[in-house]
């Protein structure tokens, strides 16, 4: 480029807040701040909003990248937090539909064969499990009673702004207190739930991706309750539909998103955020950063100079257990769901419900013992042309399983794994889909690392063992700020992973940052 031709396109301004990443948490944080009149800039390395919440087009198909269903959307008569956020608060132009059933759970091991169709509704859960496992009714009812108490306890936490009265907690929410430190398995055993009833009720476990012996009960119980009570919902235009709608609102509120812009450095001086620098040479002044990147990446790679990262922050990321990455086969089939004889949207296909065993299978580069599948047309009938359907098969992996893969063996490996998953799906559902593949893409951990710049491709955050689950994370809120002006938002945040959690966490981080800025302004 000749000198006189050079045009200055760098961003030089200062901003009240810079948000790093336009994933689910970054988007809701940016929108919330912009709506409240702050000058906010969101920097996103990809050329699309959403992070893993996106879509892509191949041939006649537009595929959803990662969403199976939102837990906190709900019908207009019983709005969940995400519907309230998108519809009432941000007033985004989005359209969601409820998926037809909770799930179809198929276990394939001969000695543990099961094929359970679960409808939404707490009563349906209780009745279905009772039908499958006579005598289980009381235990499943108890599960939901505790779950409701936990939900009420969270509402009380919110009302008291995180400073609950101990006496009230003990009196009103004893079961919440008494289960908060335990795993799902521990509590289910304590309420005398028969093993097979546990297996069915644990159907959703892969959404959080940690064995039931380690998964914190509180988190799982509220998620199951939310699905049972208000259903699972998905956007009719894939995740790209609502992420683009939030982007449009950010623009309308006077906020700004810059795509194709990677943050290289968060500049810190004397323990305080003072700015960011990007791959495009932008130098932006700000005293507040909300990072939608994981704390692991943020502390290890972004804070500059590294000497500004307190020891405690590094200890924290080392103490926590990094969650799972994933593997998805996206198939556009030239046969309709009806012709396949499948009316269900969501399938959980597991060899068995030994969640530790399935999790262990994700440590190896072999056909995994568990997958979660969707047929999008059974929720959004016109998502692909007549006579076709979109089948997604998702499984999970420990990132370590992929660490020695070389580029040369990569395509063969992912093709083989995809084939194994398709065969598993065919065997479990008694269908034949491989002859009907018109379009196919296979996303691996490296794909998620490529597009969303996720550390080790990890799209679930830190694992929710009880000591690091939602209750302790919410209880230390405000006390875990290691660098002044730095907050986090997203799946590695206080509400843990999943779309709804990440979005709600973004709002919370924005509110905390907003409160600090307003306080400062008051002082000044």
């Amino acid at each position: 480029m000749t000198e006189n031709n050079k045009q200055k396109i760098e961003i030089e301004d200062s901003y009240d807040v810079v948000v790093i990443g336009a994933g689910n948490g970054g988007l809701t944080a940016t929108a919330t701040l912009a709506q409240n009149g702050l000058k906010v800039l969101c920097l996103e390395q990809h050329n699309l909003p959403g992070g893993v919440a996106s879509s892509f087009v191949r041939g006649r198909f537009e595929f959803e990248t990662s969403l199976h269903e939102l837990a906190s959307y709900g019908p207009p008569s019983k709005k969940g937090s995400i519907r309230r956020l998108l519809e009432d608060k941000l007033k985004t132009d989005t359209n969601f539909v409820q998926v037809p059933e909770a799930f179809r759970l198929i276990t394939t091991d001969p000695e543990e064969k099961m094929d359970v169709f679960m409808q939404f509704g707490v009563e349906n859960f209780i009745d279905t499990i009772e039908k499958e496992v006579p005598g289980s009714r009381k235990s499943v009812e108890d599960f939901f009673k505790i779950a409701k108490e936990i939900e009420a306890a969270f509402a009380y936490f919110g009302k008291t702004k995180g400073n609950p009265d101990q006496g009230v907690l003990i009196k009103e929410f004893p079961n919440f207190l008494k289960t908060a430190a335990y795993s799902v398995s521990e509590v289910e055993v304590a309420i005398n739930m028969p093993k097979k009833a546990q297996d069915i009720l644990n159907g959703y476990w892969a959404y959080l991706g940690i064995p039931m012996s380690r998964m914190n009960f509180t988190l799982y119980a509220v998620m199951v309750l939310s699905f049972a009570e208000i259903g699972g919902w998905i956007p009719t235009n894939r995740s790209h539909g609502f992420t683009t709608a939030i982007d449009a609102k950010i623009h309308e509120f006077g906020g700004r998103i810059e795509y194709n812009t990677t943050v290289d450095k968060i500049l810190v001086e004397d323990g305080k955020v003072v700015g960011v620098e990007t791959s495009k040479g932008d130098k932006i002044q700000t005293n507040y950063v909300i990072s939608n990147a994981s704390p692991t990446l943020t502390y290890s790679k972004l804070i500059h100079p590294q000497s500004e990262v307190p020891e405690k922050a590094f200890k924290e990321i080392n103490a926590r257990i990094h969650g799972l990455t994933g593997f998805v086969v996206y198939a556009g089939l030239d046969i309709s769901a009806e012709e396949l004889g499948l009316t269900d949207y969501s399938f959980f296909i597991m060899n068995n419900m030994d969640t530790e065993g399935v999790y262990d299978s994700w440590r190896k580069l072999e056909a995994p013992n568990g997958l979660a599948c969707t047929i999008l047309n059974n929720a959004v009938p016109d998502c692909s042309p007549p006579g076709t359907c979109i089948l997604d098969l998702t499984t999970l992996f420990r990132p370590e399983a992929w660490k020695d893969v070389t580029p040369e063996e990569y395509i063969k490996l992912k093709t083989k794994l995809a084939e194994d998953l398709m065969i598993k799906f065919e065997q479990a559902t008694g269908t034949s889909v491989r002859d009907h593949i018109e379009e196919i893409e296979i996303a691996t951990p490296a794909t998620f690392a490529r597009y969303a710049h996720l550390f080790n491709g990890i799209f679930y955050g830190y694992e929710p063992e009880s000591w690091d689950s939602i209750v302790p994370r919410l209880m230390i809120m405000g006390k875990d700020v290691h660098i002044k002006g730095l907050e986090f938002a997203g799946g590695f945040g206080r509400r843990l992973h999943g779309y709804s959690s990440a979005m709600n966490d973004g709002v919370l981080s924005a509110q905390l940052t907003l409160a600090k800025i307003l306080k400062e302004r008051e002082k000044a």
Partner: protein
Amino acid sequence: MSKENEERLNITVKSNTKDLFAFTKLLPSREKRIERASSEPITEDLITDLARKLHPERQFLVIDEIKEETKSTKTFKLVPDPDSKTRELAYFRPGQYLSLKVELAGVRITRPYSIASPPKDALRGFYEVTIRKEEEGFLTHFIWDNWKVGTKVESSGPEGFFYFERLRDLTQIVGIAGGSGITPFRSIAKAIINGTIDAQLTLLYGSSEEDDIIFYDEFNAMEKDYPDRIKIVHILSCEVVSLKNCETGFITKEIIEKYCDVDSSAFFICGPQVMYNFVEKELGKFNLPVKRIRREAFGEVKDILTQPDFPQDVAAKTFKIKVHIGDLTKEIPAIATESVLIALERANLNPPSKCRSGECGFCRTHLIDGDVYINPVSDWRKGADKKFNYFHPCASYPITNLEIKIPREI
């Protein structure tokens, strides 16, 4: 109320005291775990390393060798530029392309070129791209005049979806190529021979001049050495043909039937747009399922005025585009018959682009105001992008004054 109290659950996991104690210990035990942990940063990220090897944002290359293929065609052998950070070349799938960046007269533009060499050669340190000099169009003339051994060329990683996928495609591949559209099939043929892909290739190759057939000897040799895997049929459209064992005219239904088992083949088409129009009509006569015919994106439409739904009344007009990029806002001229991408490149705004066919979405841009014409065959936008007024400048033409916001080049 009393009934509710009776029914009120009071569960015990271990014992009442232990359960409450476990709760009060949640935070202290978390603190203890953190205190015991390492205080080192976590820098090893092997999955991201793999992703970068497979999909580098940029590859800095240098021309190592130039081979004259025909009177109009050269093959450029590209190797990592030793003065750059590029040490190894990204592996790829035969049929994929590189988006090469060319700077001419101070303006940076991109062009997608299929990789003509097989993936194994990338591991040995080189790619080959074979380029035909076009009569019209300034770029290939510039390349002919300026690309020498030692010239540095900036490239994207391997891109595109025009490749054999064994889960989807029948293993009998029928390639239908025209002109320089043969280049991806050279990569595919070599990958078949060296075992990277397990398939057979019959290539129906249309050329317009018999002394300008690209890879003529090379394909003949491959066919001779691997007759069970590689077959080539030349179809010549010139008036006088002296070549033996070839077909004349165009690639018709009859020629396809003569050389291929239509019912057990996967068709891959790559060539100029006019060839697509013709071949697709011929293939249409077989009523094949959509999945059996795959097309490489053919790049920018050569003459947009030939599109029947293009608004002819704006054809001679030049519009203004108000462009927002980074902190810059600039008004630039744009000719109705040229893509918005070309206008952005002419204005030296270095916009992002890769496929130049509407397909990859890398140039995705927000249309704030105004209207563009989008060729229906190049419209690969997502549903929500249509709804919220995003478009792909490489496949869109200004038909009013515009205001747009484009992302900067990555």
